[in-house]
């Protein structure tokens, strides 16, 4: 039977078992919206700005094992998505973005709402397509889902001219797809794995350093098995939190710019690093020259060969699917639990570093942001999905909320995009309808996608917004305090709205919390009495609380500034 291109798009989504798309209509996607209207298998979430559609689709992916989908119109619809696409790309999030395009016979003529979508998005997608023939539509969408979700995942854009969505064609969705130019390696090289086993068994000061790759490949279980078998310390990157249970005694905290004293020292002085789905980026190892002063052997497991030896020379590269490689390592590792004196000594050293208690902070008459995070953890029993924006509040959440499970910590690590927190909450709830969702944000970030409060009302998303309101672009202010002699150039936000009234104007519940003793009751109230409401909690916090430890840009990992130094 012949159906229209628009119907083909919807049928493809149904075949891919997509249960919802986040989008915003416009001229070039009207046929698709009409096809959407005539069915009820694929739900549509109408956002208030296309950037939020992409962020929500991105969080749908991050918080589940499925591919998020966004649908937008040509021109401004597309340009509004670019921040969201780049955000997903930097964190390797599988996502398909369907964009309308002007009719194919107008392309190149500066038609109304035309833009070079493939050109604009090329540097921030895993791949993109312009569909030029309705006969290619289904197979292109199939390819998009395949590419987005395999190998090192990433966003894929499919640009569909309006005339293609009107043309009629036979629908035939391929079951599988073969591409001669795209065959990601999945199986780790056995010889390399054996080499790794040997090195791990000889290690005296080992560390397991893991990143977002463990989350994306669902390898948390295998990682925990291996770490327990070896009795090695484990540190996570910002993107890797939840990949290893934070309450496990072998967990030594997050590492990097705002990592713990023990994690950064252990990483620096380790004689063997087992890196898993992590990429030694600048926020993690600090100054690479300083980092390379210590002699060590590095084993690196990653699905993406180009992540290996990009910033740090690797001795044993293992390209492959992370859980399978870890499983293989566990299998080949005879003996197991390392109790030999060397590793025991190493643990003694780590415990000494731990003794510095680098996340300790002083209470004051103000509400301390760290305190809010500790209380949030208690009140939610550690079970919430925590989305965050970008700034000091993000670091406080990462440091003080102990994630025991993967896919619970949803933030923009690579691009560091302010404004993601609220739309991320929407995406999480579409993938996990019964979840408790806390959006940890700042008065700066929340205003970057504040319009989504309206979407949340429409669909009843009961997000608990934890606004750590310091009245400052806090992270900027912290750098200015420390590195620009306190010249606070444009980091102070004046004329803030009354967030309680704002929440109420959108039909939500607002609370303002100004005293430390009110923190816990407010949180409890929000998560029980207002379980089904969106609650905007405006916590007026210490305006000058800083994030510590801190490795200043360009400094080495062990050159941390600690709170106690000040």
């Amino acid at each position, binding site marked *: 039977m012949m159906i229209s291109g628009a119907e083909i798009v919807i049928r493809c989504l149904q075949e891919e078992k997509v249960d919802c798309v986040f989008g915003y209509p416009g001229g070039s996607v009207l046929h698709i919206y009409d096809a959407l209207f005539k069915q009820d298998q694929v739900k549509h979430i109408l956002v208030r700005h296309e950037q939020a559609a992409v962020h929500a689709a991105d969080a749908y992916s991050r918080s589940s094992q499925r591919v998020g989908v966004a649908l937008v119109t040509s021109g401004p619809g597309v340009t509004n998505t670019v921040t969201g696409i780049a955000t997903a790309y930097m964190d390797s999030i599988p996502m398909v973005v369907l964009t309308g395009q002007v009719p194919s016979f107008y392309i190149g003529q500066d038609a109304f709402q035309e833009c070079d979508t*493939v*050109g604009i998005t*090329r*540097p921030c997608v*895993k*791949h993109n397509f*312009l569909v030029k023939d309705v006969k290619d539509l289904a197979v292109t969408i199939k390819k998009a889902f395949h*590419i987005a979700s395999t190998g*090192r995942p990433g966003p894929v854009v499919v640009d569909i001219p309006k005339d293609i969505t009107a043309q009629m064609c036979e629908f035939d969705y391929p079951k599988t797809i073969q*591409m*001669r*130019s*795209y065959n990601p390696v999945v199986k780790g090289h056995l010889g390399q794995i054996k080499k790794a086993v040997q090195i791990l068994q000889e290690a005296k000061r080992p560390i397991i350093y893991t990143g977002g790759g463990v989350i994306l490949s669902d390898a948390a279980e295998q990682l925990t098995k291996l770490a327990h078998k070896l009795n090695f310390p484990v540190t996570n990157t910002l993107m890797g939190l939840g990949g290893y249970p934070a309450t496990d005694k072998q967990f030594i905290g997050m590492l990097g710019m705002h990592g713990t004293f023990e994690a950064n020292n252990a990483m620096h002085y380790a004689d063997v690093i087992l890196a898993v789905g992590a990429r030694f980026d600048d926020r993690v190892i600090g100054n690479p020259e300083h980092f390379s002063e210590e002699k060590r052997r590095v084993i690196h497991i990653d699905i*993406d*060969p*180009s992540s290996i*030896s*990009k910033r740090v020379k690797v001795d044993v590269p293992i390209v492959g699917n992370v859980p399978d490689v870890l499983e293989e390592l566990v299998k080949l590792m005879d003996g197991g639990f390392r109790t030999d004196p060397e590793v025991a000594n190493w643990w003694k050293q780590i415990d000494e570093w731990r003794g510095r208690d680098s996340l300790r902070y002083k209470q004051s008459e103000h509400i301390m942001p760290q305190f809010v995070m500790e209380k949030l953890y208690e009140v939610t029993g550690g079970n919430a999905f925590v989305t965050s924006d970008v700034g000091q509040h993000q670091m406080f959440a990462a440091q003080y909320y102990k994630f025991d499970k993967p896919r619970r910590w949803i933030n923009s690590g690579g691009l560091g995009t302010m404004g993601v927190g609220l739309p991320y909450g929407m995406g999480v709830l579409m993938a996990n309808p019964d979840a408790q969702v806390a959006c940890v944000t700042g008065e700066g970030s929340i205003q970057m996608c504040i319009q989504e409060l309206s979407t949340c009302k429409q669909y009843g998303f009961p997000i608990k917004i934890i606004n750590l309101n310091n009245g400052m672009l806090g992270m900027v202010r912290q750098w200015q305090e420390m590195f620009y002699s306190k010249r606070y150039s444009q980091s102070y936000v004046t004329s803030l709205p009354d967030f309680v009234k704002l929440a109420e104007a959108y039909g939500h519940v607002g609370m303002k919390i100004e005293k430390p003793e009110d923190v816990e009751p407010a949180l409890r109230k929000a998560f029980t009495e207002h379980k089904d409401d969106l609650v905007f909690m405006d916590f007026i916090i210490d305006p000058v609380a800083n994030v510590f430890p801190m490795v200043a840009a360009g400094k080495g990992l062990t050159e941390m500034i600690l709170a106690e130094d000040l």
Partner: protein
Amino acid sequence: MLRHIISILIENESGALSRVAGLFSARGYNIESLTVAPTEDPSLSRMTILTSGSDEVLEQITKQLNKLVDVVKVVDLSEAAHVERELMLIKVRATGKDREEMKRMADIFRGRIIDVTESTYVIELTGASSKLDSFIAALDAGLILETVRTGVCGIGRGDRILKI
């Protein structure tokens, strides 16, 4: 900073070239020359890129190219025995005593004169890039009117075959 010749088999699709060029500019790799044309199989293009960089940079270039979804195969030709050629067309002033001299120079470098007017010649010259450079250096700069070069293309020797 060694000179490398990268050969790429890539899907012959619109936009494939900009993906490769975009990768080089986005990551700060350097392109000295780039040539591209379809192969005997019209669905595939072969691209040759002349670049330079340390071993680490070259390793990254190869890996990043392989990561492009349209790229089928990548080799660094300069890693082993290969031949390379470049074609140049050069238009020179050829009047008076220079006319004979130009002819003589073209002969010495095994070039061919493929277009003649009363005052100009177009000389076609093929060879390693260094040979083309020497030819230009050997001419009186004032007599060169225009040059156009294809950029390097290359192929492995003997059994080294880049094919799918």
